[in-house]
């Protein structure tokens, strides 16, 4: 696996391998070994043409814990914001000797354009491209769900996940649907009809316009951020109607099982798609998602950069006796 551009780049066993690796890295790097030498001497560039403090810091922390050198190339004040093309930026990075580029960009397909081009030769990791995908977010979401609801080494068979919100514009939704389905989960998307793309019938999930019936029996509820701009584009009449039908409020929280996880990729619009008591309540794993993000991103960097180029993950035979 040379790049991580889309969840479709991963086979089921590779996805599980990333989760397993992340699990071990979480134990090790939060505990005994804060810093690992594994990527020493490698240069990783954060190419963030779109603002995102949270994701960028997460990748930066992941890279540094593996002893890689990190160079940050972010939107504000950089040449990208002044209109330098992706091609010119990429050629500059190549000249700087980047082993990997983590790219966050407002255009769908930007990560693939970078990977397919001959402008640079490092590994490309998609940290969010337009409304297309955000693979590392889906992996950390799956990691979080698995940690609470399934045992290590296993997939997510039979786990019922409900994803709610602006699916049409959500790269998080696209990656999550692909990954959760790949891992055997039962996924339902809930949204107003205006925010579901044409062609969604071909996605590996169910759809529903009714939040209240969809959450019955759900094991995890993932709320997507709804952007203020959508209101002027007539996807729904106003914020009040949106919250009423699609917001996770205390009434809906009461219906959830005690073990149901409440999730959100952040940043949240408190009061719009999620109320404070849902976000801060006992079921919420929203803060944990963020810390899981570092371990998962360490696992991704490990998979792409630690071994020989373009290899499948080599598994050592799992031990029969547990230790």
């Amino acid at each position, binding site marked *: 696996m040379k790049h991580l551009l889309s969840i479709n780049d991963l086979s089921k066993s590779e996805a599980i391998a990333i989760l397993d690796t992340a699990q071990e890295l979480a134990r090790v790097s939060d505990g005994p070994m804060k810093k690992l030498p594994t990527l020493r001497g490698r240069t990783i560039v954060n190419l963030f043409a779109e603002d995102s403090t949270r994701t960028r810091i997460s990748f930066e922390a992941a890279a540094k814990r593996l002893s890689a050198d990190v160079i940050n190339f972010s939107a504000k004040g950089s040449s990208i914001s002044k209109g330098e093309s992706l091609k010119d930026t990429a050629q500059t990075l190549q000249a700087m000797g980047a082993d990997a580029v983590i790219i966050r960009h407002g255009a769908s397909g930007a990560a693939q354009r970078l990977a397919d081009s001959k402008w640079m030769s490092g590994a490309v990791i998609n940290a969010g491209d337009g409304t297309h995908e955000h693979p590392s977010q889906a992996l950390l979401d799956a990691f979080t769900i698995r940690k609470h609801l399934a045992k290590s080494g296993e997939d997510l068979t039979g786990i019922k996940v409900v994803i709610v919100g602006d699916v049409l514009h959500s790269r998080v939704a696209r990656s999550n649907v692909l990954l959760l389905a790949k891992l055997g989960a039962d996924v339902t998307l809930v949204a107003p009809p205006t925010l579901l793309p044409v062609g969604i019938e071909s996605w590996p999930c169910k759809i529903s316009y009714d939040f209240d019936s969809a959450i019955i029996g759900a094991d995890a509820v993932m709320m997507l951020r709804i952007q203020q701009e959508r209101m002027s584009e007539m996807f729904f009449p106003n914020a009040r109607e949106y919250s009423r039908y699609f917001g996770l409020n205390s009434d809906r929280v009461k219906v959830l099982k005690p073990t149901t996880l409440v999730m959100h990729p952040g940043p949240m619009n408190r009061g719009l798609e999620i109320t404070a008591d849902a976000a801060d309540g006992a079921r919420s794993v929203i803060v944990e998602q963020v810390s899981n993000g570092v371990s998962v991103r360490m696992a991704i960097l490990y998979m792409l950069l630690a*071994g020989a180029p373009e*290899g499948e993950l080599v598994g050592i035979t799992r031990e029969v006796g547990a230790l």
Partner: protein
Amino acid sequence: MSLALPAPDITRALTRISHEILERNSGSESITLLGIPTRGAHLAKRIATIIEGIEIVPVQVGTLDITLHRDDLRMRPPRALMPTLIPPLGVEGRNVVLIDDVLFSGRTIRAALDALGEIGRPKSVQLAVLVDRGHRELPIRADFVGKNLPTSIDQSVLVHLTELDGADEVLIEGGVK
């Protein structure tokens, strides 16, 4: 393929190693056994059981995965990580006994020393191996050895343990006739 160490000899070797560890460290109080996965971890557990049989008190035992500290990672596709489980008293000021099945080039142990260094500062680090087959590439030596097995560089040493492979045996394979 020839049988270098049959099951009874393996058991005797582990028993002797356990006694030697206790002798060297004046008992089990100060020691922390860390097995290097995969088979070193099982051997560590066996040695811990034997030691607990002798001293009656529980002994600190865990595992130390060295994958992330290997110096040959870039030569093969990425390897799966094995668990690292450090027992409650940690390694700080302890006599750590690393345990592995075969000592060969010494690079695994070098990686283990690096990994250990990230975790803390032991009082001492000792090494117990079931088999020492020679051909060191680094200045590493074992403190406790089950069996010295002279081999040629083109031979392979295979350690089988009941927990994983269904039987206890050490086999030597290959080499020029």
